[in-house]
């Protein structure tokens, strides 16, 4: 390849990795850019895997590709797939790959993502138990949705809820089993979670909250989740969607600080000035909530990739983008602006035509807006949270309050 000197080596080949390579080249970075990923695939978009990709046979891998295959060579990006960085020697800025070769770097960027959390359940290794992370997992799940009649899902987070809604839309009987008293407890207000759960329940999905799976029992072609107390939920397959664990082991082995993710500063840099971490694997200080957070979202991955590309091309700025998320659950389009972590008060406002908004406050300061089927609200929320001022609880409580009007009048 063209560049002679070691440049940026990106560990991982997900969206954060792909976006970083793109941004570096667009910013005129002229040293080598290398991506090393362990899947035998070019970088691809994962969000559709739990949504439209499962709904029908129309979506092929081509529709998921982050960039056309020729893009990488055309932009002098060295894409190494079906291999992995297994060791980092920071003292001499060198990595060892699983295939045995070594590479040197000037800057190393961990974009290793996360993997599905496994549960220490007897029977969880049965072939009737599925997870969803890769396109191969999604193909397998789609085949089960084609053939199956009953789905049991362990985990009522975003992924579990999205797949429950898809399975129900495809006519399956669906049961969601969740340890917590409600769905999406980690990332969503109780009010919005209740609105969505009620909607999905009316579509025919069964929810079992505050139950503990004890064991998974598989027999010929069928499978059952045995709950504490002995009750058994039978299904044709079980989907395990119990959250994720950041892939931080290689970083930890190289002596970098790891605490629920690779620890980085506001410039997304580790304690080693030649090493950064971005995306699902990185835990970073979040100015708006005054704590370190690790986020699992496309927006976080791509915005952090942009921030690191800017830093590496001489324009470092602290990372402080407003976080946003979306989730499609049946005919509900949930959109979230800001983080509700630390929220103490929620004002919920059901709107006309099945719309819904929830405003989450911490110490009377608006920190997050969750909306359902209400894109105008979401768009306004992002402007307000990014550029303030923010409406008070009294203003939001007013019957005539419209965030859209507020944003129009107050945000430049």
């Amino acid at each position, binding site marked *: 390849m063209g560049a002679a000197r070691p440049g940026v080596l990106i560990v991982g080949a997900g969206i954060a990795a792909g976006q970083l390579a793109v941004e570096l080249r*667009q910013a005129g970075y002229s040293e080598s850019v290398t991506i090393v990923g362990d899947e035998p695939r070019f970088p691809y*978009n994962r*969000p*559709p895997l739990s949504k439209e990709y499962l709904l029908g046979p129309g979506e092929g891998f*081509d*529709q998921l*590709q*982050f*960039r*056309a295959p*020729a*893009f990488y060579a*055309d*932009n002098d990006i060295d894409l190494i797939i079906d291999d992995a960085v297994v060791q980092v020697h920071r003292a001499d800025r060198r990595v060892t790959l699983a295939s045995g070769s070594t590479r040197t770097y000037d800057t190393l960027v961990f974009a290793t993502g996360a993997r599905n959390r496994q549960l220490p359940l007897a029977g969880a290794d049965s072939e009737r138990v599925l997870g969803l992370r890769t396109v191969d997992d999604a193909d397998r799940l789609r085949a089960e949705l084609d053939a199956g009649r009953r789905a049991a899902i362990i985990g009522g987070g975003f992924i579990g809820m999205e797949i429950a809604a898809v399975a129900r839309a495809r006519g399956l009987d669906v049961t969601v089993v969740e340890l917590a008293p409600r769905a999406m407890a980690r990332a969503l207000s109780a009010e919005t979670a209740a609105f969505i759960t009620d909607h999905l329940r009316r579509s025919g999905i069964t929810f079992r909250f505050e139950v503990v799976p004890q064991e998974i029992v598989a027999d010929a072609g069928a499978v059952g989740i045995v709950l504490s107390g002995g009750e058994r939920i039978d299904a044709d397959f079980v989907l395990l969607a119990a959250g994720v664990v950041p892939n931080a082991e290689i970083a930890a082995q190289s002596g970098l600080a790891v605490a629920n993710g690779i620890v980085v500063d506001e410039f997304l840099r580790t304690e080693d000035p030649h090493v950064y971490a971005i995306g699902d694997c990185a835990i970073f200080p979040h100015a708006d909530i005054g704590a370190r957070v690790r986020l699992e979202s*496309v*927006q976080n991955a*791509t*915005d952090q990739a*942009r921030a690191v590309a800017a830093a590496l091309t001489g324009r470092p700025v602290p990372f402080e983008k407003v976080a*946003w998320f*979306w989730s*499609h659950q049946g005919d509900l389009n949930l*959109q979230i602006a800001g983080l509700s972590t630390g929220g103490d008060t929620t004002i919920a406002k059901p709107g006309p035509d099945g719309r819904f908004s929830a405003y989450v406050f911490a110490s009377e300061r608006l920190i997050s807006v969750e909306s359902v089927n209400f*894109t*105008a609200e*979401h*768009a*306004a929320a*992002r*402007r307000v949270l990014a550029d303030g001022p923010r409406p008070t609880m009294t203003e939001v409580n007013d019957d005539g309050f419209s965030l*859209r009007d507020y944003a129009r009048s107050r945000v430049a």
Partner: protein
Amino acid sequence: MPRVNFVSAGGDVSSVDSADGVSLMRAAVTNGVRGIVGECGGNMMCATCHVYVEPEFAAVAGLASEDEAEMLEDAVCPPDERSRLSCQIMLGPEHEGLTVVLPEAQV
């Protein structure tokens, strides 16, 4: 299989031969056209695939929906009456020659 044209803010033209049934955003992104980001993957969740449709193609490109118009207000470069989110334009034979101008920035 329409051929569509993207004109950068600096005046450079990138032409892409797209399959039918693909959004204008996907056609740009998968072919590496600079100046279209498409961060949310076509979910009308961001405004990073903003384009200005050349007036002679306004009819064939169609109008922005209400939600799309709202999201366009979050675009980095000011939207005007030519503005669309390119993820919401599904390409077909009728789009042969469609030409859009890209904003100076998307993020």
